[in-house]
Each structure stands twice: as C-alpha cells, then as structure tokens.
C-alpha cells in the first residue's frame, strides 16, 4: 500500500468525521432556531451573536455534569451503549461519494472513502445495526421505562427496515448498480432518481424518519409515557452521545436521500461550470451543492418535527406493516413492469 494513498484517505476520513460532528453540533442549534421560527419565538440568542455559540455552551455543560451510573446497571454495557450508537451513526458516511474526482496538483483524488460495489447494502446494514446502541443502553440501565423504550425502538426499526429495503429494491431496478458512486454518477443531467421513483422516495423518506427515531416516529423517547425513554438513566456526555448520535443519523439519512434520489453532487449547468472552474474547483462546487441539498433535507426533518404530532404506537405499526410494505411491493411490481415494457420497445 502506498503511503500517499493512506495519507489521502486519512485526511478524507478526518475531514468527513469533523464535518459530520460540526453539522450535528449546529443541527442542535438549527433545530432550536427552526422550532422558534415555527412557533413565533426567538430561540437561543444569548451565547454569541444570534446565539451561535450555544452548541459549544451545551457541549461544555454536558462534559461538566456529574456522571451517574445506576447501582444495578450493567456497567460495561451501560457505557458501551452510547459508544455503539455514536459508532453506528458515524460509519455510514464511509461509502458516500461526496463529489467528482478532483485534481489536486497532478493527483486525482477521489472524494469518497471506500468505493465498494455493495455500497448501498452496506448503508442498509449500518442502519440495521443502529438499533443496538439503543437496545443495549436501554437494557443495561436496568429501568423498566428504558427497557420498554428499547423494545419499542427495536420493533419500530425492524418494521420500517422492511419497507425501506423494498423501496431500495425498486431503486435498484432503475439504477442496475449497488455502488453509490455509480448511482450518483448516473443521475448526471436531470436524471434524478426521484423523477423515476417518486413513490419509492416517499416510502424511503418515511422509513428514514422512523429509523432515526425522529418525530412523528419518536416513540422510543416519548416523554409523556416513558419519562424520556432509553436515555432516562443517562447523564453527562453519555446522554450527550445519544442525543448527538440522533443528529448525526439525521445528517447521514439526509445525505443518503440526497445522494440516492436527488442527484448527489449533480446540479443543472454542471458541464458549463466544470469548464469554467477547472478540474480542481468544479468538484468542490459540486460538493457544496450536495451539502446544500443535505441541509435542505435536515431542515425538512426539523420542519416535520415541529409540525406533525407523534403517532400512537398502533398507528405506527399499522402504517408500517399495512401501509408502507404493500405500497413498496406494489412499487416494485410497477417499476418492474415499466422497465420490461421500456426495454422491449
């Protein structure tokens, strides 16, 4: 293995990790500001101009709080839970193509950590793994509320994973590839997958909301019934990790939606810009556009949270099993038939 290859990937991984953390940090701020805007309030405005230092203050507060581990908790698993939640949230970004190949000097740099040819399935696997952090933490707390919450989280995730997988199958019929790099590259020039798979996109998005435990599917952390859910026994930075993992998950889900359905780094007038800016800056501009799309989705996540009330548990299960899964199967069949007809003529 060449040393410059290792250095290149190391820089890329560090940058992506730092950016994910930064975005998650400012998502907490953005969430409060969006909530304030939607409820006609001001939101945080004390720390720094417009309150932009608020996430830093929150972070320091989290670190300074006393750590409490309940006497009857399973100590190692109690500590392992938040760490696992954080790990699962972060590793999803490894296969995302952040931009086109970029020329730095005379070196071609891929703006993607790992181009594996089962990238889409990898992401699906990481999402499937995400529930363990909640389950282990909820169980290890040795508290009935957190256990109930963990079980809710598990059944919710399993139910919505099925519909999500089925919506991805329909997408695969269109793209013919499992590599995210391929899928994004195919969407060049307005061939965005959302135009071919509108129903699939809606199903995928609803499932993404459920998988990230965001409102209206935030039943695992339902205050009214569960006193805060699986985080009830957690304090200090362990609690911070869980909350942070949720925002990173939101960022990763937004990234996946933008990459799979909304063209990733592709934008109209791309070829013109590529000529104008040259091979170094044009890919970076694409990356910027990609991030704008991601921020759009993150805003949508927040918008929905402060608009739609929470589902009841039976409604959640009904929607998942009797609504989304049949719809996703119908979507696969329709997509298959249309592709067969198009290929024939």
């Amino acid at each position, binding site marked *: 293995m060449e040393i410059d290859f290792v250095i290149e990937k190391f820089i890329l991984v560090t940058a992506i990790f730092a950016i994910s953390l930064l975005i998650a940090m400012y998502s907490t701020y953005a969430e409060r500001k969006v909530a304030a805007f939607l409820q006609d309030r001001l939101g945080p405005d004390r720390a720094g101009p417009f309150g932009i230092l608020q996430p830093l203050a929150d972070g320091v507060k989290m670190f300074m709080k006393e750590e409490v581990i309940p006497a009857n908790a399973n100590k190692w698993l109690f500590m392992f839970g938040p760490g696992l939640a954080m790990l699962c949230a972060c590793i999803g970004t490894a296969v995302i193509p952040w931009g086109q190949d970029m020329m730095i000097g005379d070196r071609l740099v891929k703006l993607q950590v790992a181009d594996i040819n*089962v990238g889409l399935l990898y992401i699906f*696997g990481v999402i499937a793994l995400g*529930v363990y952090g909640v*389950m282990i933490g909820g*169980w290890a707390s040795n508290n009935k509320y957190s256990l109930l919450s963990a*079980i809710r989280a598990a059944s919710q995730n*399993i139910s919505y994973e099925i519909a999500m997988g089925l919506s991805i199958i329909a997408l695969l019929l269109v793209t013919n590839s499992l590599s995210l790099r391929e899928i994004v590259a195919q969407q060049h020039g307005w061939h965005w997958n959302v135009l071919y798979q509108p129903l699939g996109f809606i199903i995928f998005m609803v499932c993404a909301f459920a998988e990230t435990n965001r409102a209206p599917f935030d039943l695992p952390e339902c205050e009214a019934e569960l006193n805060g859910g699986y985080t009830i026994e957690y304090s200090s930075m362990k609690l911070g990790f869980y909350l942070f993992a949720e925002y990173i998950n939101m960022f990763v889900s937004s990234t996946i939606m933008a990459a799979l359905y909304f063209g990733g780094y592709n934008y109209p007038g791309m070829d013109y810009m590529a000529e104008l800016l040259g091979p170094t800056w044009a890919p970076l501009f694409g990356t910027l556009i990609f991030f704008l799309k991601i921020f759009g989705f993150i805003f949508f996540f927040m918008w929905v949270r402060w608009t739609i009330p929470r589902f009841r548990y039976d409604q959640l299960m009904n929607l998942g099993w009797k609504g989304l899964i049949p719809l996703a199967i119908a979507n696969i069949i329709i997509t298959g038939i249309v592709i067969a007809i198009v290929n024939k003529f």
Partner: protein
Amino acid sequence: MGTSVFYFVATLSVICALMVVFAKNPIHSVLYLILTFFTFTVHYVLLNAQFLAVVNFIVYMGAIMVLFLFVLMLLNLNKESEPNKSVFLKIIGVIAGGCLAVTLIGSLKSVAITSPLVLKNPSLGLVESLGKELFGPFMLPFELSSLLLLSAMVGAVLLTKREEKTNG
C-alpha cells in the same frame, strides 16, 4: 497479510463462540453471538464474497439477532426464573456433547493441510455473478426455497391469528 488477518479473526470467532456458551447472562450470550456473526462477515470479506458478507451483516446481525435480543429482553430471563435441570438431563447433555466432540475430532484427524485454495474466478462472490448464477442454472432451487420461506411466513401469521369463537 491475508493469512495473519485470517488467523486473528478466526481466533476471535472461536473465542466469541465459546463465550456464547459460557456467558451466564442470556443477553450477554446473544451479544457474543452478534460478535461471532460479525467475525463471520469479516471472513466472507476475506474470501472476496462481498455480497454474502453484507447479507450476513444485514440479515443475521441486523435483523435476526435484534429479534433474539428483543425476545430475551421481554422475557427477562435470569437465575431465578431458570427451570431446575435434573441430573438426568445433565448426564444426557454430557453424553451428547461427548459424541459430538468425538465425531469432530475424528473428522479433523483425517483432514490434511492443503495448499490455499485459489478461486478460478475471483469475482465469483460479487453481486453480479451471484445473481447470474442464481437466476440462471440455479433458478428452480432458488424459487423453490423462496416458496418454502413464503409458506413458513404464512404459517407463522396463521399461528398468531386468534381462534374464532364458534358459539359466541
């Protein structure tokens, strides 16, 4: 490098598999089982069977083990609720385990160390070639096994259905 990675991961698999059996707490057993499956995933990657690796990851680690954990957490098994095993059961367990050990040792004795297997087609485990195999020469067995799974699913749904009261 491949061989040393293999030995490292193989050791981990064996240790985790042993811990599944020896762990006192059923939840810990399941967690070790998850780790075992994860090491299997690494083995598949080392064998260049990417699709199998990811499917093992999604299906076993991501779905089946979540259900295991789910059920165990609901049941909340512990020492007190564990039924007392009689001496008779323990003796039978020892005999059965001994038989298995003898069989394993016997079959291992006849195994000779061979040179590492070289795949004729290194891309055999990739999605494309696997799909072509499954929907080409192995079409019938593939479809039959999917029918089998479907019937199992229908059966499970039927079992959970409440019996209708005949006179009611």
